[in-house]
């Protein structure tokens, strides 16, 4: 019997993924987790235990703005929207991420 393991995220990428997900429009926490899972074909599974502290951190840094709305269940849920500074942060983190991946690929290619 093989144990199915969810691969760990690359360190520091959670914020980037969350920002990217929210960039499409307001989303609640569950929505963000589902979105990441679906888009990545179940590869990226964000645990609730790291998602919510990350959301709090992004709010503290002013990248996300919370507002209350109704969920699919018709119940109160907190939706997150990207702020201007969040948009900037997303661009910056993305550029940094691309640079990093590119560099790693070059190293792997020459090996």
């Amino acid at each position, binding site marked *: 019997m093989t144990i199915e393991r969810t691969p760990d995220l690359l360190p520091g990428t959670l914020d980037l993924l969350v920002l990217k997900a929210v960039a499409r429009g307001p989303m609640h926490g569950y929505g963000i987790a589902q979105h990441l899972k679906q888009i990545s074909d179940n590869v990226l599974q964000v645990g609730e235990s790291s998602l*919510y*502290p990350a959301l709090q951190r992004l709010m503290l840094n*002013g990248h996300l703005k919370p507002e209350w709305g109704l*969920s*699919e269940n018709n*119940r109160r849920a907190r939706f997150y929207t990207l702020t201007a500074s969040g948009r900037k942060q997303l661009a910056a983190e993305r550029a940094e991420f691309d640079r990093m991946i590119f560099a790693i690929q070059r190293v792997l290619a020459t090996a």
Partner: protein
Amino acid sequence: MKLLRRIAWWWNRNSEARALADELAEHEALKQAELVRQGLSPAAAARTARRAMGNATWMREESRAVWIWPWLERLGQDIRYAVRSARKAPAYSLGVIGITALGIGAATTVFSVVDGVLLRPLPYPGGERLVYFDNGSHSPPRFRDWQRQIRSAERWAASWRESQDMVGAGPPQRLMTARVSPQFFEVFGGRPAAGRLFTAGDYEGDGSQVVLSGLFWRTRFGADPAVVGRRFNIGGRGVEVIGVLDDRFVEPDKVVPRPTQVWRPLVLPAAIAADHHYSILEVAARLKPGVSLAEARAELARVAPELFRQNPAVHGNGEGGPEPIVILPLKQAIGGRVDRPLWILLGAVSLMLLIACANVVNLNLARGADRARELAVRASLGAGRGRLAIQLVTESVTLGLVAGAAGLGLAYLGVRGLSALYPGDLPRAAEIAVDARVAVFAVLVAILIATAAGLAPALRLKSRWLNEAIKTGSAQAGRGRSHNSLVIAEVALALMLLVGSALLFRSFLAIVNVAPGFTPQSVGVANLVLGDRFKPEQRIAFAEAVIRRIRAIPGIVDASTGVVAPMARFGNSRCCWGERGAKVEDGARIDARLMLHPIGARYFETIGASVKGATFSDEATLAPPYPVVISANLAAKLFGAANPLGRRILTGTAARADLKVTSPPAASGDPSWVVQGVVSGLHLFGLDQDVDDEVFVPYRQLGGDFDEIKLLFRTAGAPAALIPAVRAAIAEVDPTVPADDIVTMPAQVRRTLAEPRFYSTLMASFGLLALILAAAGMYASMLYIVRQRSREMGIRVALGARPADIARMVVGGAGRLALIGLVIGGFGAVALGNVLRSLLFGVSPLDPVAFGTAGLVLVVTALAAAYLPARRAGRADPLTAIRTD
């Protein structure tokens, strides 16, 4: 921004927590719904969803930690815990807060004074570059040459202080005035509140423009702006007010009188401006930027001989050499007089603070032991030793900060009290304040003490100690060794303070017991300023007319006049004409600094001094050789054991007036004197002042060249009763002479004793407080030690020891500790005595009486503090004692 969001979150922390909980619940519900959609049974879906959510508490804490730094939160917990546990032990908490607040209050009070008077930068532009030209006052030509030839200074300020009468604006009033040089207000940063200050033009005329001080303007003229342009008569001359000085201006002490009421331009009559006999100017300067004090001093060392070469009369020392030019930083010059006493007070109060600190450590140790079980339980539940230590220190610092705040409040009252009680004038008194600087000091001291006191029990948090504690409920380890050292420390510190106060008190008694050399009880004195409006002959005529009238008052036994009255202090400087060197006819010249005192007839009879030989009669000879009365010590110097009466003295050099003078003796040149009387042991300048080489001359010999005069009168009854009659006699002769300053001689004597009394009282109160604190500390320590050893005592009693034996053992132990403390404190006290030396009068710093008394008091205190706990120990019931464990 981020901080604001943190604060906003903290503000809404409850609703934020609820929001997160709701959010998580919704997340779970959505997940569950999805699982049901995927075909799971509702129950299974609920289980899976719950499991996926993981540890909700952990997530809540993680989210919370995003917003609040964990250390801050822990600190908050510790403080809350500290407040709770402080409330649970109110006696302990109030004890700690009270003792610490008292110590900090006293230390902060003295620190505020030291800071304001000695440490704070001077409130003048470039204040740290201001220097004062020491060695007395200086003559106008000397000042002129300095300005021309000294390159280190960029700006100069000189002042001539005079008291003058103001006439023509209400009743005549005596004023302190200062004539100041052109750059004076530039150097000291004076600004006008109305009108203007002096400009170059004011120095070209006759100097009849005046500027009023802000205080004088308010008190005398009700802050009326129309005062600018008004004319008065000051010192016999018409002057015009051109401006008012800003109220915030602080007179530079040492350079000008404080308070100075009227400022005038320094315009001197041609004769005085060129005469090196008039040492009248106080001189200060601001060094050029970048010129250090050492560089300036080096330049002055070069310039002094050069100036002497150019003009020996002006720059000589009267003995054929150049007069050295001595500069001090102005701050040091101003604080100099009180520098040492203030530092000593700060030292004394610090010792007291240490004793208070020892007491707090003591209390904390005792409480730490009481809480041993609580701490042990916390440790066994997983609290690390470091965490417990932080907790203990936090508790201590929390109490310490409360005490610091209370201490600051006490200091606020203390400073007001101290300034009010300080006799005479404290330099820079206006700058003493309990402000941010002082608050920082108090808080730092509070934190320091509290940390030390909190660490003491924390250091004992060893695992063995905790194990024992959890087993027995109290900690027996250590057997109170730290308490022993605390007792020793308290005894040592208290001994130092007690010896210090005993020395100062003995010194004060020694001063009080000095025989003044006259009988002050029935003498009164009127201090008058005649000023420029009287010509010299008019002064003599005025004085003699008043004396005749005073002698006619019923109840007056005698009256006389003189330029100097006994016990009249002149700040630090003395008042009189001086002459350096004298020789006996055909004898060798002796090096003495003679003080010349012009006095009237029957002076010695009036003050009740005994003179061997003859005193002056009204018909004193006015042709050389002049009759003089000299002090016994001068007679011994000049004539040895031989009879001085009838012998002649020649003064060798020209009169050198380096003291506060308005003019040199008119008869300078080659006056020769005949000794017709010798007065012994007359302390003119204060009981603690040495008798100088004094020469009393009939004042008529000097042609009335003095502007201040004292009228002395001797009464049959109490002198105070006749003051109004004397005042009336003065007014009858000249109603324009202010006669408000008439005092009795006993009051005058008390005034000269005020400073030593102040210091010895303050030291005595510190000593007493230290003794009380030390006694309380020793009592608490002994109580604790006895309690710790109760089991041992019980066994001893069980084995047949009588209560008296036990008590003797405990008291003996305390005595041993006290003796060790006395030895250690003895060394400290010797060191302290040496520091005190300059404040002591007639008492050796190693005075055996002071040391003996202090030691005895402490031994008795220690034994008394041990006695009650010892008696309790002796009565211990062996069964209870052994059963304690």
